């Protein structure tokens, strides 16, 4: 059972390689809201639709002064190939070695099978965790409204219309 970090806590710092093997630090994003998206594995069908949906709404997400960072235990070579395949332009970070260390720090590593839960952390511009969403059924991806509801609470309804009827 994952123990999710409580809202109001400073988000644990990390440095991970992106798909171009460049180190990315969470604190590089201070001043921006961050959607930290843990997912079980590159190349699996559900993750494909989850990240494709995030990519599809990336413009609207950025309207909330937010950036998305995807994290899985795959290595940076896999991330690179997969990002190209999916046309994903936001960074996919390799929590590969020490294996799953960042997922562990965020309470979403699965000791049973060595991957992370599917989870979202919403971190504000000061680096504080404001909200989270986690499922332990890897077959079910988060609804897009989860992202926009959380960003709206952090940033106010300053984004362009994403939810108007």
């Amino acid at each position, binding site marked *: 059972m994952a123990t999710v970090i409580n809202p109001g806590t400073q988000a644990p710092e990390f440095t991970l390689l992106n798909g171009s093997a460049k180190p990315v630090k969470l604190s590089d994003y201070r001043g921006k809201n961050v959607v930290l998206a843990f997912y079980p594995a590159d190349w699996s069908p559900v993750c494909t*639709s989850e990240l494709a949906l995030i990519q599809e709404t990336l413009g609207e997400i950025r309207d909330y002064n937010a950036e998305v960072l995807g994290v899985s235990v795959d290595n940076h070579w896999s991330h690179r190939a997969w990002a190209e395949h999916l046309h994903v332009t936001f960074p996919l970070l390799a929590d590969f070695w020490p294996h799953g260390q960042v997922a562990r720090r965020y309470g979403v590593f699965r000791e049973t099978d060595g991957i992370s839960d599917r989870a979202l952390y919403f971190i504000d511009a000061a680096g504080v965790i404001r909200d989270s969403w986690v499922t332990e059924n890897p077959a079910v991806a988060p609804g897009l409204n989860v992202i926009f509801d959380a960003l709206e609470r952090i940033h106010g309804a300053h984004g362009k219309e994403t939810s108007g009827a």
Partner: protein
Amino acid sequence: MLDDRIQRTQITADDWILGSPAAPVTLLEYGDYECPYCAMARPVLEGLVAEMPDTVRLVFRHFPVTTVHPHALMAAEAAEAAGAQGRFWKMHDMIFAHQPRLSYETLRACAVAIRLDLARFDLEMEAHTYLPEVRHDFRRGVQDGVNGTPTIFINRLRYDGPRDRESMLAAIAAVLKAAPGRVRVVA
């Protein structure tokens, strides 16, 4: 914890509805014409309506995921263009039937096959007349918590289960049992 299981938007007069408006069970699908899982779900969903016309209705809204499906948006506009000529569901079925190759030429051939006014079709496709409708559906999908394509809601509750006839019949029966109505489902 953030919740994403409930359909928030209402079914409105501008929605495409297959089946009886009075049916007590509404299946709302957010779909993408280039998504193979949507193509597989189509006969099941339409079959449920055909099987239980007084009980089940199907509502379809567009959710084109354009980064992975480069033709999905154009196909959605084409379905809307056909809808403006009173043939939405015919076009819907034609597009899914031609899914592997959804070029404009293919969509045009579909339009010919269902006897659309082709001059009007070309003109409206060129002008992207129905793009706002497609965008409107997409926004409603974000609001409702789409988590992939297809995303299906059964009476406003997101259905993440298998999309075969038996599983969906069971889910519909469970919905009807939870909200006792005037109908009976024989699975």
